[in-house]
């Protein structure tokens, strides 16, 4: 039996190699070629009309950007806040929605519904709701005597307000992944725990939580990558403002592209690509290794 995998590997493939050609051509033309072209253009001063090779000047300039450091910190903060809230809330909602409560099917669709709505639409709606004086949120707070803050206009709050909206919109997906993970846990474990006299908390801590690790790994990876490259919601709600307070790497890159600094923004994209790689590859390896040890 030990030799079986070796024979399988050395056996010629069932399909001739040229079967892969169409896919390979499409992939190289639409993905590989632009990727390598962008690596080149990131080394030039590019106006779309012509380009001048300037070496690593763009990268030096990108890292000199006064708001870049803040943008990087904001990006990481945003990814950490949204993915951890999605894990906690997604798990809680999934536990609630897999228990025997009334209108379970209806509540499940209510939780998932925001995922289906357009991000920009959600952003614009919440911008109206979060208006400092005429927004429904602050008017509601005023009714009970609290003067609400400028959710999107206070530079200390803006990023977190957007992150909360991101969680509201994205938690449904995390919940669905968790529901699938929880349902897949064999009932035997709970029965055994009940026979041993485990409390509800012990049930959760020692059975549910460890056995839903694959779901947790998926939720963290997806929402963390999503958080790192987030753009649409931030652009719809604050455009990186007030000033530069809620800028992320993606919005800094977009503004440079808008300003016509095409080479510089391409360099920014290369930086973002490397950054996501550096953070996500070890994260995925870590989460998956843990899973293998179980």
């Amino acid at each position, binding site marked *: 039996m030990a030799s079986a995998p070796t024979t399988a590997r050395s056996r010629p493939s069932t399909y001739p190699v040229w079967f892969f050609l169409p896919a390979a051509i499409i992939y190289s033309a639409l993905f590989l070629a632009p990727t390598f072209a962008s690596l080149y253009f990131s080394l030039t001063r590019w106006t*779309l*009309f012509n380009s001048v090779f300037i070496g690593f000047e763009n990268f030096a300039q990108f890292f000199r950007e006064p708001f870049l450091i803040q943008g990087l910190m904001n990006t990481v903060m945003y990814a950490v806040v949204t993915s951890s809230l999605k894990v906690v809330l997604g798990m809680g909602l999934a536990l609630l929605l897999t228990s025997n409560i009334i209108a379970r099917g209806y509540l499940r669709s209510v939780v998932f519904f925001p995922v289906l709505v357009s991000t920009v639409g959600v952003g614009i709606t919440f911008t109206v709701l979060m208006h400092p004086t005429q927004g429904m949120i602050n008017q509601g707070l005023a009714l009970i005597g609290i003067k609400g803050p400028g959710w999107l206009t206070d530079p200390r709050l803006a990023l977190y307000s957007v992150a909360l909206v991101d969680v509201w919109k994205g938690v449904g997906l995390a919940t669905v992944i968790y529901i699938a993970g929880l349902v897949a846990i064999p009932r035997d474990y709970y029965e055994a725990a009940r026979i041993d006299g485990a409390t509800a908390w012990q049930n959760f801590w020692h059975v549910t939580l460890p056995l839903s690790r694959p779901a947790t790994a998926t939720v963290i990876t997806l929402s963390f990558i999503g958080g790192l490259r987030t753009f649409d919601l931030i652009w719809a709600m604050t455009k*990186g*403002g*007030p*000033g530069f307070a809620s800028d992320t790497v993606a919005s800094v890159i977009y*503004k440079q592209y808008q*300003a*016509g600094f095409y080479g510089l923004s391409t360099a920014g994209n290369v930086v973002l690509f490397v950054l996501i790689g550096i953070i996500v590859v070890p994260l995925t390896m870590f989460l998956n290794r843990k899973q293998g040890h179980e």
Partner: protein
Amino acid sequence: MTLNLKSMALAGVGALAVLLASGAAQAQSTTLTLLIDNGPQTVPVFEAYVAAFEAANPDINIEIETRPGGGEGDNIVKTRLATGAMADIFTYNSGSLFQAINPQQNLLPLTNEAWQANVQDSFKSVVTSAGDVYGAPYASAMGGGILYNIPLYKELGLTPPKTWDEFMANNEKIKAAGKVAVIQTYADTWTSQLFVLADFYNVMAAVPDFAEKYTAGEAKYASTPAALQGFERLQQVHDAGYLNEDFGAANYNDGIRMVATGEGAHYPMLTFAVGAIEEISPGNTANVGFFAQPGNSADANGLTTWMPDAVYIPKTVSNEEAAKKFVAFVASPEACEVRNATVNPTGPYLVKGCELPAEVPPAVSDMLPYFADGGNNGPALEFLSPIKGPALEQITVEVGSGIRSAADGAALYDEDVRKQAQQLGLAGW
């Protein structure tokens, strides 16, 4: 199999021939495409221009396409020019943004057109690159300064200020009366730049060669006191508590509404906003007046002016003759009459023979003395220098919201300007 293929090929050729024939039949009437921005002042005017032009030239048919304004519009124009997919005629800014679309490479020179004789030199200079003129004006000149609510001024017994100190004294009285003294609308970030940009007449009055030295990289905002002043004033009105409570979330339309209805007294803005009052706050156009941004002394009071956008023809035009005909119409006095009949005028025209209607809104008549004999006006910096830093609007939001100090903001802007100058490939940076 071969036979089948042949007959299919023959059928294909036949269909192609029919298509070609019908194409030839249509070629007798020319169709041009026209790309304009979607501003409320632009769309109705161009619809009226096209209707009048098509009535006079039944063989030419013009299809209007719209695009967003601001940075997104810049993107569309640059991308379409670079990919050769530009419409036959398009509108775009004059001045520094015009320089950034590589006119010599992309646009058709219009230097030798007969109508150029009627266009004022001040406009020609902002659509000229390397000695060739590329555009025609389709709107009137504008002023940058402060719109004010006339009934509120009368009620409090105020007069339009000639110096910054008088302006601040007026603000104090307005605030004491429980009204909003200065309206700011930072949700539309571009509106935050006015106190800095409209101060430029005052900068030039103090440092006459600022524009030249700035382009050469020798004069900086942070180290030139007269230039830094615009940032300082932006900070002053915030620090003194003169702004509307929702300045961070209000937008351009809110600003117009507030100054038109008297919810607020002053709104720093370009006079093109006058044309929008009727739509946003009907019946209030007569309640809005205008004055130039006051400087340090009443004797040196003058207006910073903006040139309007222009129409251009790209080198990729499908029918050069027809496109030039339309541009010639846009630059004619007939077109000005069409314009007067469509929207409220926003300032003096730049084409000889164009007259303002007898009745103009007060904000426009307030502006005319600056253009008359003995009046002072000068162009904004973006018409004297090809460099305008793209992050100015975010920086002015920060300075105007108390997030960053004026000196810091000016230094940050100098950094932004350096980036733009390098992108343009200017010498000395």
